[in-house]
């Protein structure tokens, strides 16, 4: 299978005052692949995400998204247009659902732009034209298919804020998917999930990659998720890119081990950890 580049990041740099949060990073995320960005806390992962999705304006760097909707230079676009036109959807580290609206409404709002066009920017919808009613039915069908997939159909009329934590995480992913994106960016989707929910998440993400056939970019600390489903891993440390490759390659990269375990000699690693590493053949 040939790999099609979906997102090409070139020389991305982001400063906050004197702090260089992201320093000259270049990488490529491919279509129909799961690309993971990992790194210790404060490595600049979320900053990369915020630059991609237009929440920050990076002073240096080119962000080229070449998806089914055409080619877009994200660094030149307003925040909301990146989702609207280029087709890049994201979730947040701290869940950002619309808590006092229902589960179903959350999924319908994600289809806002499609429905706005169908409602003739409100004018036609106000008088209940058929075109709008058809579009609304389609939107409901898409929402229902996601509710069925997540097993939340019975809770469709609940306020989203009342759902259990794990369901909120999955609903946020489904909401992002309802925008029909070409690239789905997930910021720590497994944070706070128990092992069973984390396994369900892995299944959901591979399904999004294989059946919806889009690219997924995720930040994650849960190594079972990262190593289990990623096709491609990018490692950041102190704002720099220190490794880029397949899970197996990254796992055995000495720079990565140093970043996670410290600069000391390997024999100064606590004995039990060193033994584990040796058993896994990493050192």
């Amino acid at each position, binding site marked *: 299978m040939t790999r099609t580049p979906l997102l090409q990041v070139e020389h991305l740099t982001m400063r906050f005052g004197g702090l260089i949060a992201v320093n000259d990073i270049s990488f490529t995320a491919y279509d129909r692949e799961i690309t993971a960005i990992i790194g210790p806390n404060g490595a600049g992962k979320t900053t990369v995400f915020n630059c991609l999705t237009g929440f920050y304006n990076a002073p240096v760097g080119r962000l080229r998204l070449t998806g089914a909707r055409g080619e877009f230079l994200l660094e030149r676009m307003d925040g*909301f247009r990146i989702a609207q036109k280029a087709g890049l959807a994201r979730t947040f580290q701290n869940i950002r659902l619309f*808590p*006092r609206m229902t589960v179903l409404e959350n999924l319908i709002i994600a289809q806002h732009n499609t429905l706005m066009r169908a409602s003739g*920017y409100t004018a036609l919808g106000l008088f209940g034209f058929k075109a709008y009613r058809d579009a609304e039915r389609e939107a409901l069908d898409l929402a229902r298919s996601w509710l069925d997939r997540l097993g939340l159909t019975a809770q469709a009329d609940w306020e989203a804020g009342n759902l259990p934590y794990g369901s909120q995480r999955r609903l946020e992913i489904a909401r992002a998917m309802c925008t029909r994106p070409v690239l789905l960016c997930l910021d720590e989707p497994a944070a706070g999930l128990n092992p069973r929910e984390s396994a369900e998440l892995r299944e959901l993400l591979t399904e999004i990659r294989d059946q919806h056939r889009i690219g997924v970019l995720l930040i994650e600390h849960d190594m079972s998720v990262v190593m289990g489903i990623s096709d491609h891993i990018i490692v950041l440390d102190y704002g720099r890119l220190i490794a880029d490759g397949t899970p197996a390659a990254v796992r055995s990269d000495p720079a990565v081990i140093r970043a996670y375990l410290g600069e000391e000699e390997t024999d100064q690693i606590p004995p039990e950890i060193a033994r584990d590493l040796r058993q896994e053949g990493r050192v």
Partner: protein
Amino acid sequence: MDLRALFKDAGLAAFVAFMLALPMVGFQTVDVSGGVGLTVVTRFGDVAISVALVFVGRLALSLLHHPSWRLPILLVSAALALGLLVVKTPYPVITWLTVLASAVIAVRAAWLVFDLSGVIDRDEGNRLGDAAAFIGRWFGPVFVLFAVIFPFLPTTSRYLLDLGILVLTYVMLGWGLNVVVGLAGLLDLGYVAFYAVGAYSYAIIARDFGLSFWACLPLAGLFAAFFGVILGFPVLRLRGDYLAIVTLGFGEIIRIVLLNWGSFSGGPNGISGVPRPSFLGMPFHPNPPEGTTSFHQFFNIDFSAEHRIVFLYYLILILALITNSFTLRIRKLPIGRAWEALREDEIACRALGINPTNTKLTAFAIGAMFAGFAGAFFATRQGFISPESFSFIESAVILAIVVLGGMGSQIGVVLAAVLLIGIPEFFRELAQFRMLAFGAAMVGIMIWRPRGLLAHREPSVRLPDAAGARR
């Protein structure tokens, strides 16, 4: 039971009451007969009564903590409240205060005696929320029907009809502001500015260009919406407190411009002789001008000044109902849902590709448009407008109607408007203490119903055949 502590507590409350009452109640300045000066009259008797009332009331409230005292206190306070309501005393203010205080204590005691805490769930409010949905669904049409036949009820006097028009004007303004505050979550303290824009648009266009009310009405709405967009642009990035302050300033700017731009708006003298509306071109006039048929001539009935009042009543009723049905409808459209989503989380909205600029501006524009319609109505009803009618207190009252009614609740706005506009009219005999009762009612509502009288949100969309999806 520690009687000493109870008395000490009540004594302290009485002392505070004394310190407050002595300067405020104890001394009154009155005109010397002939109006040549002022003299001080002391009212120490009233001070003593107030202090005694506070002492007894505080003691009663403390004793409510002891179950054995609850029933006697309930009986005594209820008897006192009812008794003083019936008996005429020469001191109306003191009597009213006593009635109010003993009624509060009686309610509190009844609450504890009959253990009513389960009836009103302070945080959830689910049961009342369901009640609100029920009231909205079944009583909404009944309310509308009542409003339609109201002018023809035998008990309806000219005064009540005027009051009805006033209440309906505020209901319409409340429904309009509900779009901005309740749905889009943009705290607007300068809503009255758009009301003013609508009123002046109508007055000036009708005066200078001679257009009829019906031609001016959409124009007034359009101008107000235009001003809504003008206000909207600079405040796009602001939220919460900052937005409230800027909108407050905007409201004042409009009022002050109207006050000072004499050649345009007539300054503090306002505009008088604003044309009255006509019924399909037929004026309400005993002697219509040449070439026109008056309303009473056409229907071949005797002229009565009340015809115009009834017509105005129906006019504002229709305008209000249009506002309501428009809001209910647009809530179910993508733009309405986007407003609510924007209220919930603006960052998430942007991540979903919703244009926050356009969404906010449409909310401001549509809210302002309805204020403009209401303003045009106000101008034609009064026949005279001046900047005085559009002071900040009007904005505050409209906002209070929306907040007390329950943000986003249509029927709540009606109840709150009746409560806030109608009830003070009935308490006119309290004179200057009227606003005190008003304040007390608002504090009470905020304590017992922090999310508004009828805070209930009906989902804007449901699954079409969701048999199992309802909770």
